[in-house]
């Protein structure tokens, strides 16, 4: 897979893993996300996705964070294929 292939976090399927490349969408949310470990270079795994256009549940730095779909669209990731420990 080419290393410059980038997609929004919101389009990763459940179980999908990616490395964060960039976070757009304002300084406030961006800083708040960084404090939870979502920063360029971080490895994230999508655990599940909520119904009705609901949030994306991501695992990052050993903790789970629910991100609204809109926010997740502003986080660009480089997909890494399914995680080895998928399904725990």
């Amino acid at each position, binding site marked *: 897979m080419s290393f410059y292939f980038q997609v929004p976090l919101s389009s990763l399927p459940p179980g999908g893993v990616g490395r964060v490349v960039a976070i757009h*969408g*304002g*300084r*406030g*949310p*961006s*800083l*708040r*996300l*960084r*404090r*939870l*470990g979502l*920063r360029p270079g971080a490895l994230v795994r999508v*655990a*599940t*996705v*909520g*119904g*009705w*256009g*609901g*949030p994306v*549940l991501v695992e990052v*730095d*050993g*903790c*789970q*964070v*629910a*991100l*609204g*779909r*809109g*926010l997740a669209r502003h986080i660009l990731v480089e997909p890494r294929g399914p995680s080895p420990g998928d399904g*725990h």
Partner: protein
Amino acid sequence: MATDRRGAGKAGRSLPRVALVGQPNAGKSTLFNAIVGYRALASNFPGTTVEALRGRANVGGRRGEVVDLPGTYSLLGGDLAERVTREFLLSGDVDAVIQVADASLLGRSLALTLELAELGIPMILCLNMMDEAEHKGISIDVDALADLLGVPVVATVASRGQGLSELLASLPTAKPARRPPYTADVERALARIAATLDGDPGAPIHRAAQLLGGEGGQATLDPRTARAVEEARAELSQGRGEDPGVILADERHAQAMRLFEAVARVGQPQVGWRERLDDVLMHPVAGYPFLVLILLGLFALVFWAGGTVEGILSPWLDGLSGRIAAALGTGPLAALLGGAWDGLAAGIAIVLPYLVPFLLLLAFLEDVGYMPRVGFLLDGLMHKVGLHGKSVIPFLLGYGCTVPAVLATRILDDERDRLVTAALAVMIPCAGRTIVIMGLVGRYVGPGVALLLYGGNVAVVALAGWVLTRLLPGEGPGLILEIPPYRRPRAKNLLGKTWLRLKGFVALAWPLLAVSSGLLALAEALGWARGLNASVRFLTWPLGLPSEAGVPLVLGILRKELSLVMLDEALVGGVAALTQAQMIVFTVFVLFYVPCLATVGALGKELGWRRTGLVVLGTTAVGLLLGVLVRLLV
């Protein structure tokens, strides 16, 4: 420990004061309760504590004061919790800080340690939830961490009381943590700003980092500092092509990760029921039926338990009431005392059967960690009414009591979301209103209709949200909510929390019920009630209620359940004398009109009085409108 009053001696503050600082959901309140006795609500969701709470304890062999501060990821940001914590620490009125860190999230917690190091306050690092870290396969070299940071580090499991005496014993050895340097260009920028801060007391590096990061009131700076800040920020962001606040956060994170890698080894995590539970409860499809089942199960359990206890309690209380009435005889004084007893009896009959099981089950859901998951599941639906999933937590708390629900809106990051959520949370039927729904509609009309009222209430709240968010445009940035692991609830915490909430209810409600009921009985005995009722006829007439409902509705502003108890007193033959339609209309109006006084106070504090006035008027209009509508339909 907490009741000992010795030690308040010389002028000013004579007790050593220790503050608990930490990231949300790291267990500060659990630790606080374990040290000073049950004072703070502790729950398994981020942001339970919204205000600094104080308690007394034996601190390193001396009597001291312990302060539980709201959870915060950082000391530099502009969030409410961040501001409360920062201002408290900068007031200079703290002798030492215990940083409570979730050991299973050590890397992230150390970023806050580094910010505390910049403050220069003597500190101890408490690695809490060590059991959780082991579960995740993380082993931490506590001594190595203490050496690197230059502060005492103590491992604890606060929920089981492990390590607490060691923690308190090490307080006298608290020291400011060592601050590792940033990269050279950042240090240069910080030094440039710090050099202009000579008049500023306290911690110049902390202040410089705050200003360099673009936080904290540039408007009030002296011109020399303002210029230095502007130049340093411009130079740094030019050199790196990134916002200085982001650069600082990233560097601190990198330092924290280096520390983490030096002291921790990450092995294979254990997989157990907690990991498997979310496969079902947070499933995009299966999660929803389970949500409905859990909430319905909660209500069913409360009403089953309540009905059972009430069946035992009621005959006993009725018998007692009969004997008291017989002993008192007649006359104004007898009416006053008899009325007061009836009010108190109603308070007992309400509190014990329904409120206790409800509060226990709510505490269970909070402690197990289900609340944030409901926020996750309902985020998509909440967007349809212009809010997001975090608002669900205040709403759920609102079924217990509206006051904590209004205070819990502080967990929301956006001002407009806070306003709308608080305005809507006020309309959620609290325990007091549940008493009216169950005691009147549930008992005399049928449980199905009572359930319909709950459903209708949700629909009205959703509609009001839809309207409000269109009147107040500007949707916030969206949901950012940490989902903590499930935790096994501890009986001690469940009982402590239920007792704390119950105490608040009993201390306020029982005297109020007794006094109001006594005065109402007296007013009736003296023939004054008629005039009072006539003055609120403008409300009772359009609703088709008997004029005797006037005073009870006014008293309902003090406490919602008071309206039902008083109505029962005021009507000849009790509430059973009402038609079923009147019962439904009365209940609908009570559900929505003016929030109780305690809620109005909380709203005033959180939203300001003008907005509170609007909420009071708006909800009363909704109550009247719906009441009339239901009257015409039923």
